[in-house]
């Protein structure tokens, strides 16, 4: 493939590897050829970035829906698709279709079901699904109750060097629950589970990962006790990574107070003390990945009594501005923020992407970090506007987005 070279000049480059610098970026044949000061080919197209910020496009691991307009509006060009699809991603035909359906603008990296049908009983065909395009295996939004099965999943995935993406909530404690136990759930009379459900699940999976040597990715860690376990395991050298959504960093369970089903998330919103622990874990590097958990759900699943509604949020379009808010608040430096949004998720999936280093695919995001706007779910490009942040003023607007050097509009 040979296309016209592209020279992006006069930008503020934010690279998780190279840090923040002023300069330009040269794209040749869909890949990054140079950054900083460079000599562009004579026929290169030049774009004056006018001082806007140029960063690697977002790699969003753990999305529930294929929603191309929403991802592009959110600066996302690669997603790790959850296996909880219909049908479940446990068959090479289904995995391959998912891997190809978004191209060329959106590269979908399927997370294949770790167990057949996500039932938590029999091992999924991990190697066959890997060859069909799967980049990891996962338990979906469920928990594998049987520790014997979970151990085999981790051991087998280890042989294939596939990360195992888990949902960390003890199913026995969390069964039927739609909220975290505490004052808010008590006042509202909502079925709830103690936040202990999370560290309980994490502790087991960490021990099994340590013993098997598998790469474990905890999709969402949201409790103080959970972060303590992950922090301790990392210091022992366990191959564990963990993620979180902006919602769990910015909202606590009190946000459910008027039964707003857009606040019905999985894992549920936690106590304020857990939210503070999450911000600390973001700052000290315990959290590796920031993701949207994009799961658009229309009124037929959200305009219901809280406990009857579907968990999930349309997060793709708010991921970047909310993340930039965290950087603006001083919770995390901007270049490290893009490690959480691009480099680390790419590393988890073993794909070459996520930085501005030469040789990387030119998956680029040009944005104005200061441009203000108001989050309005009704104006989302997503399939549904179920955002917990409706009405929130934010800053950060995407100006241009490139996948492999080709501009997406």
């Amino acid at each position, binding site marked *: 493939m040979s296309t016209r070279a592209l020279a992006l000049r006069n930008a503020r480059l934010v690279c998780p590897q190279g840090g923040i610098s002023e300069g330009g970026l040269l794209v040749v044949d869909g890949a990054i050829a140079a950054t900083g000061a460079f000599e562009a080919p004579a026929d290169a197209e030049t774009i004056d970035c006018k001082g806007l910020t140029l960063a690697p496009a977002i790699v969003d691991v753990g999305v529930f829906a294929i929603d191309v307009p929403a991802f592009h509006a959110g600066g996302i060009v690669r997603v790790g698709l959850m296996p909880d699809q219909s049908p479940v991603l446990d068959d090479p035909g289904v995995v391959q279709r998912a891997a190809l359906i978004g191209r060329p603008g959106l590269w979908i990296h399927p997370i294949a079901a770790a167990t057949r049908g996500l039932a938590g009983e029999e091992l999924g065909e991990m190697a066959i699904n890997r060859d069909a395009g799967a980049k990891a295996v996962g338990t979906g939004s469920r928990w594998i109750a049987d520790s014997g099965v979970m151990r085999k999943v981790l051991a087998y995935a280890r042989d294939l060097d596939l990360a195992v993406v888990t949902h960390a909530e003890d199913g026995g404690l969390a069964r039927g629950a739609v909220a975290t*136990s*505490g*004052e808010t*759930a*008590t*006042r*509202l*009379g*909502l*079925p*709830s589970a*103690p936040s202990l459900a999370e560290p309980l699940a994490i502790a087991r999976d960490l021990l099994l990962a340590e013993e098997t040597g598998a790469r474990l990715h905890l999709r969402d860690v949201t409790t103080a006790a959970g972060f303590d376990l992950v922090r301790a395991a990392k210091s022992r050298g366990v191959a564990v990574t963990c993620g979180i959504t902006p919602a769990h960093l910015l909202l606590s369970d009190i946000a459910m107070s*008027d*039964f707003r089903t857009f606040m019905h998330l999985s894992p549920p919103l936690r106590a304020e003390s857990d939210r503070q622990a999450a911000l600390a874990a973001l700052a000290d590097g315990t959290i590796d990945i920031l993701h949207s958990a994009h799961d658009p759900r229309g*009124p*037929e699943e959200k*305009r*219901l*009594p*809280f*406990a*009857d509604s579907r968990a999930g949020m349309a997060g793709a379009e708010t991921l970047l501005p909310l993340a930039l808010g965290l950087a603006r608040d001083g919770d995390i430096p901007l270049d490290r923020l893009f490690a959480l949004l691009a480099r680390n998720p790419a590393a988890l999936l073993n794909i070459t992407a996520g930085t501005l280093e030469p040789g990387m695919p030119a998956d680029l995001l040009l944005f104005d970090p200061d441009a203000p706007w108001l989050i309005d779910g009704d104006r989302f490009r997503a399939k549904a506007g179920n955002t917990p942040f409706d009405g929130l003023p934010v800053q950060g607007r995407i100006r241009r987005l490139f996948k492999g050097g080709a501009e997406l509009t």
Partner: protein
Amino acid sequence: MHASDHRPAALIEGGAVFPHRHLTGIAGLQPHEITFLLDESEQWIEANRSRAKSDHRLDGLTQINAFFENSTRTLLSFEIAGKRLGADVVNMHAAQSSVKKGETLIDTAMTLNAMRADVIVIRHMSSGAVRLIADKVDCPVLNAGDGSHEHPTQALLDALTIRRRRGAVAHQRVVICGDLLHSRVARSNILALTALAAEVRVCAPSTLMPAAIEKMGVTAFTDFDAALEGCDVVMMLRLQNERMNGGFVPSTREFHLRYGLTMERLAKARPDALVMHPGPMNRGVEIDSAVADHVERSAITEQVEMGVAVRMACLDVLTRRARGVEGWA
């Protein structure tokens, strides 16, 4: 609290004394608003005891009782309350409704709204369902119980019973005992009684105790005998059949051993302590017949009587704006 909250209701201009369109819960009501509803209920107690019980202030209005969950007593109480005020009362039972055919709650609410109901009384098995409907309809909505959330008229009738039998609610030591985890009656009562300055204790095994319940201004006990100490009012909750055998408590007889209200146990409370139960009772489980039927101590049938009066008051007050009552329109 502002000084104005203590002004007698009669001195406050019309609707300003109760500026709520719906009654979805006790949460959100000021103490003086609760007192106002209790005051308004008093007139109906005497009226209901007379031979001619009918009033005509709701003549021509349509009251729909939409019950998505089975109920006999609450439905009957709301139906009698509406009819005694002259309303045309229509009952919609979940068993015979389109809910079973997959219609969403919102669609059902819109349907009731399109039929031009003047007041809708709703019971639903999900917490928050009543507020969801209230946001979508044009007429006042009364919560007759939503999931484990609230049952405001039950709390009002309980407060009225306590006020009449004990002279006041303030400073009464009340213990609420039983399945607190799933009880909307307990939540509404905690809110109402603490708002009216009672001292509220709650008692349940830890398996039926909601998390952080003390944040609602109550003291939690797992030992019923200790909780009864010095109580003026003993309020027992119903233990649902499906929660009795192994799920949350080992057995009904074990529950009776630890939490059943017997005459011996009642002796731990004050000698004149009042016994209450929202019904229907499981005799021999949470309450013994000797206690339930005790002429001086049990207020259980009086609670039922107060229920009609309280619901008449709520229906009257909530429809005043629509009826153009002076000062409320």
